């Protein structure tokens, strides 16, 4: 009914309008005739009739408003009118749309990243049925809250459970891919054979793993390529299935290519290859598959329909308790923790950091949007003055206040939608660039990165919310302000002759001060991040990373056992040392500052003492000399240390002070892994995992006493270390052409990964600060320029009365400077309160660093002064004659 009327009204709107006109006019005439009959003369009768009616147009408008479809009809009118207004002021439209695009774009871009990391469900079948299965560690060894499973435990859970319909495990495990005589470390995952089938991930190419062969050790030499790997290393070869690739020296058949959007189950971490766990004992040394002591498999289970997480938790806990009884040594206090897969984004420990960072980033992006809103609100209020007469005429013709506000809001919404559209374009470009950059991010970390960042319905919904919220924020105050002005007052005013009401100026000033406040806060955050980056790149890491070459040898991947590997290094390192330009060389199990953390328990005194988890590295003789790590007391490792001599270790200063305060550490006994070690040396403190860490205790074990097949070689050179890199490769290949040799680079390159966080922080906040500064100075300029335009008449009068241009410029500048100063005072207060949030990301700079604060304040003052100076100059050039005639 309503719809039919609406359509009918729409189609016959002209005729209906004409009829309404005739009807209302007819009413007036009949009323007048009535009065004539009552004896009033015809002219007076007409006037009285009109007055009684109260305005033909108003009555018509009131009648139109009750008609069906009136809302749609006027909405259409509003939109058409809005488009016309925007076309009429292309300059204003362009600036507003760009401002909004930047403001909304900053938010949608950041949200799209957070969305793909936190909100998007995994691209798997029925993700709501999946749960993450973890073990919880015994209380006294609790370094992590949740730990992965051992393979035998996983098998027991799966085979004894009745409430689960599937159970899968996976573990990051880098492998060496050999191609054309070269080997390359590739981040891979070892997975149970049912992994893809259970997740419902359909191969892009091929059939996937042959599940029939699963669990028969070493029989299914198959690998599945990630889409990125297939596209990159294998040039999208359509005939890749069935071809053989060489991993860790073993031929493996390509059984499938994963779909493009599947990056594994740890979000942000993307393996390039998947290989079956059953191949583990072939590809790697040792056999953790059989070992209940090795907890290395991330696990996921699928609940049967109708089973709750709680029920499954209880069932698995019962199984875990049986295992604790059956294997008291390995499974001591090993309990089960189930978490819905949707709640775990990466791993529970990392998730907290990710969500905290997300909140901080979105908060800052929100501030940018607020500045943008204030900008446009200011522009609209300035423009509203020019439109005052137009609005007045419209309300005189029967436009209700609500209708007028709606018209203005529609115009604003048009602006926002245009801005939002542009923001989505920006976001989509950024997303693509970021996805690519993540995929190609080359770090010396054993994991790869990959994330499908794109615009899905969540991002669209977020953008829509941003558009609506923005429209409301920047549009409502100016709209109300415009439409509430009295009719007669507005009609009487001559455009340009007045300086606008005081209240409005106060509001404009408040907007600009607010912008400056936010912008100063953002700039201070940017300044702090940049200083932190600067400090981090100059911090003394406790060793000298310059002029050193390094290479990683993953001999275990080539099937070397420990004695064979030691023999290899005993041939390799002396030959490297003999190279011209190499002054010192050694090996270690890893480089510091590459984020890799290896923690074991150490107890001062004897094995009965409680253990403390401490970061450890195993290093060979000459390591300290090569790295230039000072030995403070005692000695470095040397030829006295071998597998048969008493175990020794070297500690750093922090550990020495912690274990034996006010005593000499040399000669003390430390218990570790069932053996007693004697402390033979104390080194200076250094940075071990990240540059930002506070001094942490550290233990060095001797490589001579703990033979490790996979080592990194370090060689100190005179002058440029890159020259040595080729020689290192050559020598290694001469000894054994089949060993996987990777990460051939300078130590400076290898440790630069530790600057990743401060760099990312510097980039993001630097960008935020810059955006904020640009927007806020645009706002300041806009308002000052508007005031000058408004006061042209007044300035003309002042000049005619003898004011010189300098005084005029001062007049204009003073107002701007007051706003800048208020913004700075408020901004400093906000910054003092807010920057504490950043302190976790800052290195070597306090959250209230006076230098940063001072520099930023001065920078903002300069930019602000410039934004005022340009319009002030214009004011100086006002020609009094022109200004006075302006009216």
């Amino acid at each position: 009914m309503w719809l039919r009327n609406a359509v009918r009204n729409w189609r016959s709107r002209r005729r209906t309008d004409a009829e309404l006109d005739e009807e209302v006019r007819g009413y007036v005439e009949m009323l007048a005739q009535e009065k004539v009959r009552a004896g009033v003369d015809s002219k007076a009768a007409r006037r009285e009739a009109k007055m009684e009616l109260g305005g033909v147009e108003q009555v018509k408008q009131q009648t139109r408003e009750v008609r069906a479809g009136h809302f749609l009809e006027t909405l259409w009118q509003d939109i058409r009118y809005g488009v016309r207004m925007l076309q009429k002021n292309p300059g204003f439209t362009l600036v507003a749309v760009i401002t909004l695009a930047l403001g909304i774009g900053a938010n949608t871009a950041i949200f799209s990243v957070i969305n793909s990391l936190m909100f998007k469900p995994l691209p798997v079948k029925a993700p709501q049925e999946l749960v993450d299965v973890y073990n919880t560690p015994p209380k006294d060894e609790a370094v992590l809250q949740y730990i992965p499973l051992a393979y035998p435990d996983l098998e027991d859970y799966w085979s004894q459970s009745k409430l689960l319909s599937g159970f899968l495990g996976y573990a990051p495990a880098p492998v060496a891919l050999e191609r054309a005589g070269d080997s390359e470390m590739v981040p891979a995952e070892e997975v149970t054979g049912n992994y893809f089938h259970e997740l419902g991930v359909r191969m892009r190419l091929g059939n996937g793993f042959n599940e029939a062969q699963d669990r028969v050790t070493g029989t299914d030499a198959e690998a599945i390529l990630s889409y990125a790997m297939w596209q990159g290393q294998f040039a999208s070869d359509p005939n890749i299935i069935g071809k053989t690739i060489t991993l860790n020296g073993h031929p493996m058949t390509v059984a499938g290519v994963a779909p493009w959007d599947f990056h594994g189950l740890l979000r942000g971490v993307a393996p390039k290859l998947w290989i079956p766990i059953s191949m583990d004992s072939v590809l790697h040394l040792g056999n953790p598959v059989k070992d209940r002591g090795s907890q290395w498999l991330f696990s996921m289970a699928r609940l049967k329909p109708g089973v709750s997480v709680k029920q499954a938790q209880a069932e698995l806990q019962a199984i875990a308790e049986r295992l604790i009884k059956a294997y008291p040594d390995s499974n001591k206090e090993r309990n089960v923790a189930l978490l819905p897969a949707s709640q775990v984004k990466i791993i529970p420990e990392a998730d907290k950091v990710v969500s905290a960072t997300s909140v901080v980033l979105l908060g800052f992006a929100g501030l940018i949007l607020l500045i943008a809103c204030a900008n446009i609100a200011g522009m609209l209020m300035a423009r509203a003055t020019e439109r005052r007469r137009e609005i007045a005429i419209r309300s005189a013709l029967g436009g209700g206040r609500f209708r007028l506000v709606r018209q203005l809001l529609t115009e604003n919404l048009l602006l926002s939608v245009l801005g939002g559209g542009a923001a989505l374009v920006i976001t989509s470009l950024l997303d693509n660039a970021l996805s690519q950059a993540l995929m190609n991010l080359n770090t010396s970390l054993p994991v790869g990165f990959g994330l499908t960042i794109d615009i899905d319905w969540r991002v669209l919904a977020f953008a829509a919310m941003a558009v609506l919220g923005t429209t409301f924020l920047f549009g409502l105050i100016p709209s109300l302000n415009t439409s509430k002005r009295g009719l007669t007052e507005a009609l009487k005013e001559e455009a340009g002759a007045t300086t606008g009401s005081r209240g409005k100026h106060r509001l404009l000033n408040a907007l600009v001060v607010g912008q400056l406040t936010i912008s100063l806060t953002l700039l201070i955050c940017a300044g702090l991040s940049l200083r932190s980056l600067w400090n981090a790149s100059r911090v003394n890491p406790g060793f000298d990373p310059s002029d050193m070459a390094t290479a990683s040898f993953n001999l275990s991947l080539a099937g070397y056992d420990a004695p064979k590997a030691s023999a290899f290094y005993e041939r390799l390192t002396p030959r490297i040392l003999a190279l011209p330009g190499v002054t010192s060389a050694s090996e270690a199990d890893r480089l510091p500052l590459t984020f890799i953390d290896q923690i074991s328990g150490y107890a001062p005194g004897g094995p009965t003492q409680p253990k403390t988890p401490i970061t450890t590295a195993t290093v060979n003789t000459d390591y300290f000399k090569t790295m230039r790590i000072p030995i403070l007391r005692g000695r470095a490792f040397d030829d006295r240390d071998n597998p048969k001599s008493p175990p020794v270790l070297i500690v750093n200063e922090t550990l020495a002070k912690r274990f034996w305060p006010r005593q000499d550490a040399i000669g003390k006994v430390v218990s570790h892994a069932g053996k007693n070690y004697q402390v033979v040396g104390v080194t200076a403190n250094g940075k071990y995992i990240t540059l930002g860490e506070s001094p942490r205790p550290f233990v060095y074990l001797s490589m001579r006493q703990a033979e490790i097949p996979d080592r990194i070689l370090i060689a100190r050179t005179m002058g440029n270390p890159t020259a040595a890199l080729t020689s290192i490769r050559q020598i290694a290949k001469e000894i054994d052409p089949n060993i996987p040799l990777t990460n051939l680079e300078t130590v400076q390159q290898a440790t630069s990964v530790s600057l990743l966080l401060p760099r990312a922080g510097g980039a993001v906040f630097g960008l935020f600060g810059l955006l904020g500064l640009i927007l806020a100075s645009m706002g300041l300029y806009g308002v000052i320029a508007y005031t000058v335009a408004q006061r042209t008449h007044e300035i003309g009068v002042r000049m005619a009365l003898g004011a010189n241009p300098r005084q005029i410029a001062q007049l204009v500048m003073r107002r701007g400077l007051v706003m800048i100063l208020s913004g700075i005072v408020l901004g400093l207060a906000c910054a003092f309160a807010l920057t504490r949030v950043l302190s976790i990301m800052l290195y070597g700079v306090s959250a209230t660093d006076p230098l940063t604060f001072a520099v930023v304040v001065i920078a903002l003052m300069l930019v602000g002064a410039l934004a005022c100076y340009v319009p002030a100059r214009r004011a100086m050039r006002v020609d009094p004659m022109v200004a006075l005639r302006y009216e």
Partner: protein
Amino acid sequence: MGRSQTELLQGTLDMLILKALALEEMHGLGISRRIEQVTKGTFQVKPGSLFPALHRMEEEGWLESSWGESQNNRRAKYYRLTKKGRRQLESETERWGRISLAIERALEA
């Protein structure tokens, strides 16, 4: 404040218009005069409320309109009740009876 008043009166106004049209078809001014006359001037219907009400009721299907000649040979739009309008008048009258009775009792109590 003006809003609550019109809302209160809206149902009443509809009923008065329906009642006025119950006997014969009429144009706008006629309806307004008839209401004034039967309520002895208590209700004076302003065109600003009359026309919106007439148009709304026409869309509801209670009234139909046609153009005709007024007594002074002027083209005027005449409204008359439809069947649906007559039913509406009955139900409104009945509803009004209940309300006024209830209010009367409430005031007497």
